[in-house]
């Protein structure tokens, strides 16, 4: 397990599939995380293997990818349902939840990645 900071943000593929969020293309564009090579090695995880990213606000399982230029200990997940499963919902008195800069742990897992509908279904209380 490593301790990281979560950042979520737009990517072009996530943007290009915004109007088809039920599709595989959107799933491929939004359901993953990126770490640098060193962080991934430290986890003993290879590309496309699943990791569990956890914050104080939730847990999500996504496949891992490499962004060589990422600094150490930052985990990036494209904006969308998978990132939002674990972002900080507190609006800090000004309306805006914490989509970036959330302390997160990352560890290898054998758990599967939920598709969009199954992920959403977990929110039924």
């Amino acid at each position, binding site marked *: 397990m490593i301790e990281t*900071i979560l*950042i979520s*943000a*737009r*990517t*072009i593929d996530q*943007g*290009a*599939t*915004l*109007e*088809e*969020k*039920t*599709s595989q293309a959107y799933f491929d564009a939004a359901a993953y995380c990126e770490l640098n090579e060193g962080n991934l090695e430290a986890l003993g995880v290879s590309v496309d293997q699943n990791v569990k990213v956890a914050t104080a*606000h*939730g847990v999500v399982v996504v496949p891992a990818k490499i*962004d060589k*230029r*990422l*600094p150490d200990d*930052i985990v*990036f997940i494209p*904006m*969308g*349902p998978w990132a*939002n*499963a*674990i*972002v*900080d*919902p*507190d*609006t*800090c*008195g*000004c*309306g*805006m*939840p*914490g*989509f*970036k*800069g959330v302390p997160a742990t990352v560890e290898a897992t054998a758990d599967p990645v939920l598709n*969009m*509908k199954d992920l*959403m*279904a977990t*929110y*039924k*209380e």
Partner: protein
Amino acid sequence: MPVIKDVVCTFCGCLCDDLEVTVEDNKITKVGKACKLGRAKTMGMFLHERIEKPMIRKNGKDSELEECSYDEAITKAAEILVAAKRPISYGWCSTSCEAIEKAVVLAEETGSLFDSTANVCHGPSALATQEKGAPSCSLGTAKNYADLIIFWGCNPVHAHPRHQTRYSTMAKGAFTPNGKKDKKMIVVDPRNTDTAKKADLLLQLNPGTDYVLVEALRAIVNGHADVLPDEIAGIPKATVMEAAEMCKAAKFTVIYFGMGVTQTRGRYKSGDNVSSLVSDLSQTNKVVMIPMRGHYNVTGFGQVAAWEAGFPMALDFSRGVAYYNPGETGTNDVLMRREVDAFITGAADPGAHFPQESIKYLYKIPAIQVDGYANPTTEFSDVVIPAAIAGVECEGTAYRMDSQPIRMKKLIETTFKSDEEILTEIIAKVRELKGEGGA
């Protein structure tokens, strides 16, 4: 082959208005000049599934959505809103200003909270404007004059792909005839992004330290470099000094800022302080700032809501006149507190873009969705009303990220009702239910 020229792209806040769209047999078959995002938006609708029919869940969130008529769905929507004590209307950013005007009326007449997608993107930029103002310029001015471009917490290569060629680093302007050669570029980002690859200087700050970096830059500009420590926000002092020198050397600087500024620690206080940096620097040379708006007409929402009701977002009409206080009246504020009892959204997808806690609550209250496509919001919506796609299937006004309004074109015919028509019908039904006919 009929080609429609100078079509307005309705994806991002760049609102490029030079697309060339080929329409054959009421289908869009080719989109010239667009980026990947614009092409997906403009012709994507023929590649994936629409919400074809209005739908209602008749037996709670666990039941399936069942097809119904527009009338039925609109009546149901009106009933939900009229019955609510604390309804909220959210979104209305990927649609026309004409539709947004109707959404304001609906919110007023149902005593709703009323908020835009700025709640999860540039809301803090509006708060910053309220603190310090908005020292800005039009994108054409930026193109013609700017010899230093700063991308702060934004990544146009991914989010605004044509920005650099049309308006910023690569654009040729009156005083920058050689484009890139006449311009310098600084990127401020904790990630070494694809945009940063071509930067002259990358300020790779620690996440959440934007405010600290602005403080240091202002201290330098105001003659207090001596007090700064050797490292600021994870960046060597010398590098920060170099950035300040580049700003002082430039004749015209534009700071484009994105959600890296608005969504991190300190929220609007960073953008607010950038605004003061702009003012400080402008004592010797011209500096302006422009927010990189995401939804193509989220700027328009702010404009319409401000002129119609006084505030750009997070309005609370519960007492018949708008009260405004993000942190209290923003969508995620009230969802987190679980204090609304009905939800209507259009031309936005809170299901995909809200934090988990907010969505958990949306599964508990009656929810209405007005949209062209099924998405995570559909999963918890009790009433789903399909809408025409503004800027493709119906015309109207949209505001670019620099607050420049442009008229969107209608490219093809459709049988779907527009957002404006749907809202107009819901308003009529609300009036009928409340016994407030006329007007």
